[in-house]
């Protein structure tokens, strides 16, 4: 079953800006789906329409088969959303924010209080339950929004740039938490600027640019479309040899080599060629994130 199905979605804002030009995509139940694209590509508009914050101009959006236009109550009960920007009352206490959110989903207060305790503990915010939300740190505010999004126990969790502006440790912790959520059966849709994040977490991806889906498929399929991949190799001594057929750049120290492999060249063959020249490879790493290269490749091609 599709957790989310979008058919020919179009959105024209009252200002005349055409944000979506006929987006169609499917997210399978249980998927960890990445929605990628540059700023202004239309990602947040898609999320806004799905969650009810933006009205659609035309097209169909279904959440677990429930049309968001005709059957919005059923659709919204199944969605949890963590928006990009903080959108809770700064005067409310942490505990009240989560309990009230459950109330908006029709969950009785007695149940809501138990759930709020559970999720605030899960997210390490229980000690802060009685403080006003404005006093929380940026990372805590992000976690509060995750707790709030989970309190009605949705089957589809949408995270719009959840790790924007958070430190590395917190980001890793969030990845771990969200991955475990996904393993417990929750479908996750993630938009992010950190392509490393998408490469590490997502099973399926869609790349959006200028209101259109330009690529949509499994991460493996998309990465196989990568035309070239650049690696940085750390050698045992300064390189003076020749690597025929490879695009090579010797970096400043001479002991660092940047080599681009096209889709037909194997990394193992490169290593053999280097050894033949009389050099040992001490370490090897990709010059940049693979998804980032792919993303740039698609976005550049479609410009």
């Amino acid at each position, binding site marked *: 079953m599709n957790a989310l199905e979008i058919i020919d979605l179009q959105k024209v*804002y009252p200002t005349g800006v055409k944000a979506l030009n006929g987006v169609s995509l499917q997210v399978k139940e249980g998927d960890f789906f990445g929605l990628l694209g540059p700023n202004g590509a239309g990602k947040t508009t898609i999320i*806004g329409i799905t*969650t*009810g*914050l*933006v*009205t659609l101009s035309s097209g169909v959006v279904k959440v677990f088969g429930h049309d968001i236009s005709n059957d919005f*109550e*059923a659709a*919204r*009960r*199944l*969605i949890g*959303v963590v*928006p990009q920007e*903080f*959108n*809770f*009352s*700064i005067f*409310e206490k942490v505990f009240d*924010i989560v309990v*009230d*959110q459950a*109330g*908006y*989903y*029709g*969950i*009785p*207060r007695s*149940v809501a209080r138990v759930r709020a305790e559970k*999720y605030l*503990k*899960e*997210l*390490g915010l229980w000690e802060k339950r009685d403080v006003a939300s404005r006093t929380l740190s940026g*990372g805590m505010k992000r*976690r509060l929004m995750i707790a*709030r999004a*989970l309190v*009605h*126990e*949705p*089957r589809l969790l949408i995270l719009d740039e959840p790790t924007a502006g958070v430190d590395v*440790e*917190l980001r*890793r*912790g*969030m990845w*771990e*938490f*969200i*991955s*475990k*959520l996904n*393993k*417990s*059966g*929750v479908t996750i849709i993630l938009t992010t600027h950190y392509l490393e994040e998408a490469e590490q977490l997502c099973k399926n991806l869609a790349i959006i640019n200028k209101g259109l889906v330009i690529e949509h498929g499994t991460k493996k399929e998309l990465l196989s479309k990568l035309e070239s991949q650049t690696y940085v190799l750390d050698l045992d001594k300064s390189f003076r040899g020749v690597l025929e057929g490879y695009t090579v750049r010797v970096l400043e120290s001479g002991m660092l080599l940047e080599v681009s492999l096209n889709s037909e060249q194997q990394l193992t063959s490169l290593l053999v060629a280097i050894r033949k020249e009389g050099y040992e490879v001490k370490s090897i790493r990709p010059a940049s994130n693979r998804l980032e290269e792919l993303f740039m490749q698609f976005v550049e091609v479609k410009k």
Partner: protein
Amino acid sequence: MSGTMKAAPGIHLVGEGKSSFQQNLVSMGTILRKEVTRFLRIWMQTLLPSVITMTLYFVIFGTIVGSRISDMGGFSYISFIAPGIIMMAIITNSFSNVASSFFGMKFQRSIEEILVSPTPVWAIILGFVLGGVARGLLIAVLVSIVALFFTHIVVAHVFYVVVFAVLTALVFSLAGLVNAIFARKFDDVSIIPTFVLTPLTYLGGVFYSVSLLPEPWYSISLFNPILYMVNGFRYGFIGVTDVNIFVGLGFLIICCVGLWGWCYYLLRKGTCLRQ
């Protein structure tokens, strides 16, 4: 954070064994509870100012000036103005409660918490409006208690006191919601109370009987809707009115229905709320 986060929870299907309507009632109740908690928590801003202002009215217009004014409708001046002063408090408080609370949520974007939820439009309206009615009626009780220190309050027709108080609070709560939906800045929620409600209330027969007005002011006053609310409420207390109270009742009911329909249309459409 990894150190403070525990294992992700197992997620279950939503369903609390309640019907959709029951769930929507819980949603509405959550909004209402939040509204009442809010105005009680900040009582220094929401309840106290009205009580102090109305006390001053009783002191100045009732005791100091009123003692030099002859009876109106067969009652002492202070007994005559007391219902109007209570009604004035109901009008301003019910309106401003909904207008400021809803706009505050819009401004902070916390209104999105409700907009992304399955809460239907009727439950959103009812939750906010009943919050406004609760504040209006609580203020009415508080101002009535204050009035007891200055005059003897009689209640001729309890039914009309309750009906006019509740309907007026409903109408102005709904009007406050319409104002808040359209408001884009804080100034927008103070324009209506300052430039519309206050003049209409003062000219709505709170402090005088419109029958004392010469033409054309008497006829012009009959177009002031607040005149009918004040007189209907006063009729409930002292059994005296300048206008037909059934016209007032009919007008209030029409306003309730009309404003409810307008709020419903605006929220359903997402005017100034959804992009």
